[in-house]
């Protein structure tokens, strides 16, 4: 097997007009249908990136990072594919004409140095695309061919990322921040079961209104985990990786100096995956409810291990939450969130 057949690697570039260009590694043995499905991944992964821009109130949010944990669940498979990491990274850059996004889809059999790859994308590959465009446009004038340039840049970029994969992960010093939880998402997924609910403040609580300014919207936050988990699952299937299933672990979003983290924990019992995830806003004012990520991780694990109704555990996450359940699956339910929770007045 060639080395790149063991990994999933794609680089998607969306220009100022949201035109998408991609460079994706896949096996030469894949059928045309499979290749078509793979080619669609760029649009599907970038979809919510555009969506946050479209639905955000007062700002273009970036989905910076999505990480899923992969578990071996199908014991009937003779030989399961070994994949250790699954994550996506997105770099957004402002140009004179608008925002451009460079999105990387990575899954490998190793525990990757995410920071190194993130730096490669945001500090080298993405600026290189923008700068090459400026310089070449200027030098070549009418002869400038953007398609040619972007294909060459994406190939350079993907080579650089691929070369960095599998390296030893370094420990980086990072300032520890405290976060405030603005919502908890409960999800249960099984063969014939699909439940997803959001718990948050009361619709009239001033805290709901206050924190709405620090997230893209309750609507966007409610759909992201389910959307990306399904998409990652489909990606794994389309690449013929057998016996492994994803669970969203982490989604990071940012807008200017605002930071949102979605953090999820899960259990898998009796063929049902049960998960709880918290929507966290980086601390901007002192509050006794602000906690470190490690505290939230611990509390999520506690809730999952208790096997009790979530309503009894909401206090652990945020005492201001009510037990009102906001469904997040059907369009009707989501529209309700949009109409009521995302109402800023």
């Amino acid at each position: 097997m060639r080395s790149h057949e063991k990994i999933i690697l794609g680089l998607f570039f969306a220009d100022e007009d949201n035109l998408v260009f991609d460079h994706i590694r896949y096996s030469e043995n894949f059928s045309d249908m499979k290749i078509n499905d793979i080619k669609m991944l760029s649009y599907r992964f970038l979809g919510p990136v555009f969506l946050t821009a479209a639905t955000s109130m007062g700002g273009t949010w970036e989905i910076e990072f999505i990480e899923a944990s992969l578990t071996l669940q199908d014991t009937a498979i003779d030989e399961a594919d070994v994949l250790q990491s699954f994550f996506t990274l997105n770099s957004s850059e402002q140009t004179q004409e608008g925002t451009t996004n460079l999105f990387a889809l990575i899954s490998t059999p190793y525990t990757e140095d995410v920071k190194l790859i993130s730096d490669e994308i945001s500090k080298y590959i993405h600026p290189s695309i923008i700068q090459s465009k400026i310089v070449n446009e200027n030098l070549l004038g009418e002869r400038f061919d953007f398609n040619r340039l972007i294909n060459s840049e994406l190939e350079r970029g993907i080579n650089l990322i691929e070369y960095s994969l599998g390296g030893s992960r370094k420990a980086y010093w990072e300032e520890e921040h405290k976060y405030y939880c603005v919502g908890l998402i409960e999800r249960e997924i099984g063969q014939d079961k699909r439940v997803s609910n959001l718990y948050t403040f009361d619709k009239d609580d001033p805290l709901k209104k206050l924190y709405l300014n620090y997230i893209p919207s309750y609507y966007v936050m409610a759909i992201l985990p389910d959307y990306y988990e399904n998409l990652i699952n489909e990606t794994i299937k389309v690449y013929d990786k057998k016996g492994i299933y994803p669970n969203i672990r982490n989604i990071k979003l940012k807008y200017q100096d605002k930071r949102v983290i979605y953090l999820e924990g899960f259990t898998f019992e009796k063929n049902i995956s049960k998960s709880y995830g918290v929507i966290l806003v980086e601390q901007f004012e002192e509050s006794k409810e602000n906690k470190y990520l490690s505290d939230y991780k611990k509390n999520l694990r506690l809730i999952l291990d208790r096997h009790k109704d979530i309503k009894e555990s909401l206090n652990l996450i945020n005492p201001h939450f009510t037990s009102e359940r906001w469904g997040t699956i059907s369009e009707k339910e989501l529209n309700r969130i949009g109409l009521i929770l995302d109402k800023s007045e």
Partner: protein
Amino acid sequence: MDNLAIEEIYKIEKDKLLRYYEMLKGQFTYAGTTQIIAQFLVNQSVSSNYNHIYNTLVYFKDRLQEGKSLLDLAFEWIRAQKIRLEYKKYLGEAQYPHNNLSLAVDDCIFKFFLEYDEYIRKLLKKDIKEHNLSALYEIFFSPYESKNLNIQDILERHIDNVPTHHHETQKLNTNIIILRSGLSIIIVKDYEDVLFARKEEKLRKEIKFKKKIEEEPGIESKFEGSLIERMIKTYCISNEELSEKEIENAVSQFLSSYFKFGNLYNFDDFKDLLIQNLADDIHSGLSEKLKQSNTLENIKYLILNVITIFRKTSKAKRLDGMAWKKDLTPVLKTFVLKFIDKIFE
């Protein structure tokens, strides 16, 4: 990365260098500052060409940030040699798939020069034309033995490659293109040198291995008994008595010419060869007259008898060369001793 990080990673002994510079200043009281700094840099082995260094200093003198001096530029020139050393060490170990030169350029720029670019720009005026920077990189990071580091020639080459771009009055960031323009040729040349050195090393190893194989004895190689032949020849002429030690040495040399320590030999593979070669050497040492009474066939028959008796006591089929030598030396020594004793009978 701030100034401190680059200065910490690539440390130069600034105090020591400063003391040395002050000493030079004391020696060359008649010379101007630029001349002394040029001499200082020649002595620090940044380049062998005084004029090239001097002209570079003169060119950049008016392009330095306020508060920075030519001595600061000189220190950075020295630090650049340290960075080059580290980068070369890294390149020496790098294994780029398909020896992808473009990847080598991107990887080295990202790992060694991207943050350095941010650092070195603080030394130069903000409105400096970009080709000055790419020219400076070429000068700083070219190998010591580079023939042409004439600043004017280099600037001429760079001026059209990397024009400075502006949006309204603001200079656009094209740092990656500048880095590629200044360093691509150097990195490619350095990596090609690494590849060449690896190829040479591989070839050297192959030749060594081939030679070793050729030197290794095979069943087709010969026992060389030149000492036995000479000893018998001398005896036939002088008739002087031979010591046991002399005979033992000759037999030992005969066996050593074939058996090697660490190699295993089957008895049946060397038996006939040993009989034939020993008989040849003994027969060849005899005078013409003695050859008539001791025919080659006769000698071979005598040796065969000795070996057959030896084989009755030693049943080993496969032994190390040294073991065969140890076992056969006393047997053949006794045979040669007896043969010489009866030679004139």
